[in-house]
């Protein structure tokens, strides 16, 4: 057994910050019911301002995307695919002609599935925003999460274009505390007091699980296996460990391809581009000096 086992630690007091244990989120859409309690809990606890009420027309998702004032975002995917062994009739409605309860029946006339996934800051192993921050406002905490220190951030906006997942953003006027960059804090304030992050605490189905990273990895792997055995052939973990991001601390189980969730298939930390860009910059600098010397030496 690793750590505390693979049971949920969502409702327990803990001392991860004091013990410097790496923690994370495992988010599992196969049990998400799309209630958005995580979004509400996040906004209430962190006092995140409302950023407008608009109808998106995209299923039941009127939140839109993660941003400066949205740190949890429940996605609503409507796909023309089967969800496990679920059989649907025309337009995704129950099919009166087929036996709904015959598991494995492939008579679905109009395969349809509705998938909910609560998106959040990934708290990357190699974090683009943290590397890019010129003020040292963005730091790594004792539990391995990535934290923006709001009072230090001067709103330069470089983290915004350095996040490979499009999570962090600068809060526009006239919202409260505008001008700074904001994202999920992993409820660092709560964790310091031994409390579980607000979103995981309220999740009624434990679709969001908070806990030790090693426990969650084991739990995730087990859940994928379980789902695949019960007919969810396209269940997989989304945790890009092979790219320069080096894995994420808030990882996901997804059904189907990451692109459908707006997740980059091969995210890279932008610092890998530094070497070639600086080489080019230095070459240009030297070429400009030589050109200037040539100009003054031979054309005066």
């Amino acid at each position, binding site marked *: 057994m690793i750590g505390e086992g693979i049971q949920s630690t969502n409702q327990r007091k803990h001392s991860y910050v004091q013990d410097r244990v790496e923690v994370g989120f495992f988010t599992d859409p196969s049990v998400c019911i799309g209630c958005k309690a995580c979004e509400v809990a996040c906004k209430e606890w962190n006092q995140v301002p409302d950023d407008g009420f608009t109808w*998106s027309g995209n299923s039941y998702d009127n939140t839109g995307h993660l941003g400066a004032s949205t740190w949890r975002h429940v996605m609503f995917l409507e796909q023309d695919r089967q969800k496990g062994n679920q059989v649907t009739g025309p337009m995704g*409605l129950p099919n009166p002609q087929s036996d709904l309860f015959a598991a494995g029946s492939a008579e679905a006339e109009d395969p349809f599935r509705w998938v909910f996934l609560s998106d959040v800051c990934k708290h990357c192993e190699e974090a683009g925003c943290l590397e890019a921050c010129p003020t040292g406002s963005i730091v790594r905490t004792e539990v391995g999460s990535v934290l923006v220190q709001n009072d230090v951030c001067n709103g330069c906006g470089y983290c915004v274009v350095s996040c490979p997942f499009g999570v962090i953003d600068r809060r526009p006027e006239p919202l409260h505390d505008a001008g700074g960059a904001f994202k999920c804090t992993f409820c660092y304030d709560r964790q310091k007091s031994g409390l579980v992050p607000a979103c995981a605490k309220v999740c009624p189905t434990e679709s969001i699980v908070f806990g030790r990273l090693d426990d969650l990895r084991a739990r995730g792997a087990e859940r994928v296996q379980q789902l695949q055995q019960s007919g969810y052939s396209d269940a997989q973990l989304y945790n890009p460990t092979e790219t320069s991001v080096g894995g994420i601390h808030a990882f996901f189980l997804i059904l189907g391809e990451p692109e459908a969730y*707006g997740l*980059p298939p091969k995210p*890279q930390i932008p610092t890998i581009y530094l070497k070639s860009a600086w080489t*080019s910059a230095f070459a240009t600098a030297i070429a*400009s000096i030589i050109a200037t010397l040539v100009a003054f030496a031979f054309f*005066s």
Partner: protein
Amino acid sequence: MTNEPQSEKRLEELREQAWKDGVVPGKGVDVAGGPIPRKPGYYGQAVVKPPVWTWQVPLYFFMGGIAGMSAVLASGAVLFHQVDLARAAMWVAVIAGAILSPILLIMDLGRPRLFLNMLRVFKHRSAMSMGAWILSLFGACVVPGLIALELHAQHIFGGTFDQLLRVAAGIFIFGSAIFGTLLATYTGVLLGATAIPAWFLHRTLLPIHFGTAGLGSAAALLELLGHRIPALNFLGFYAAGVESALLIWLSVDKHNAADRAIHEHGSGWLIRIGEVLSGPLAFVLRLFGLIPFAAISFLIGSLVSRFGWIVVGKVSGSDPEAVFASQQR
């Protein structure tokens, strides 16, 4: 009662079918967003976040380029004893690099009064941090450099102190030239080392473009200020030649959907107009001896293309297909 019997008839049919079969197996009209979304990614939403930067940033790129490369020209002029040109170039470097550039950069911050936090840390892996330090050190060289040069040129003091001023002016001017070349080129690294596909795919081209545009703009501005000398004309040819080559490079080095913001939309036109004005057009005008027109063409071109690259970032960052295409498995 109806004006459109055809559509009413269709509704009657549907009602009849619903009554008889209990279900109507039609799919309806496939509008955007439903019933099954057909847009790329998640409802066509951006995968990475487009830059939040506004007009101050491209204008800063332009000013920083002029300022940094003016300091290089000032060093060349000092080395070859062209004191008037050196003074003009240092004035340009101070006004554009030590006054306008910091103002523009601070204006773009979300919280301008915290701008000094930029100097809390030194992070070589952050191009923004390096840029803040480069700009500060450039300012710290170029201002005393200009003061020493002016005091020396106008012979305010005599004797040993004047000699000391001469040496100090030399050191500060060469120092500002070193930081100046970095000031003009680091902005390319700043854009190149991000998650925006159209930017990072051209991370080698961007510093060459920004640096050379800075050199050409500095020479062009000094020409317009009355320093019509062969050395600056040569640099004008050099910069316009390099920009023409970059125009060809950009049109050859295409990455399909991943960098289409450079070739399509309004952003593509900004890049093309900027490159043509500062590349081939400036070169041809210079060939015909129309130096002021060549200088103006180059300056406008490099200003337009700086704005173009920021707009490209906004378009490319909002395009989910560009991100997916740049990460093809």
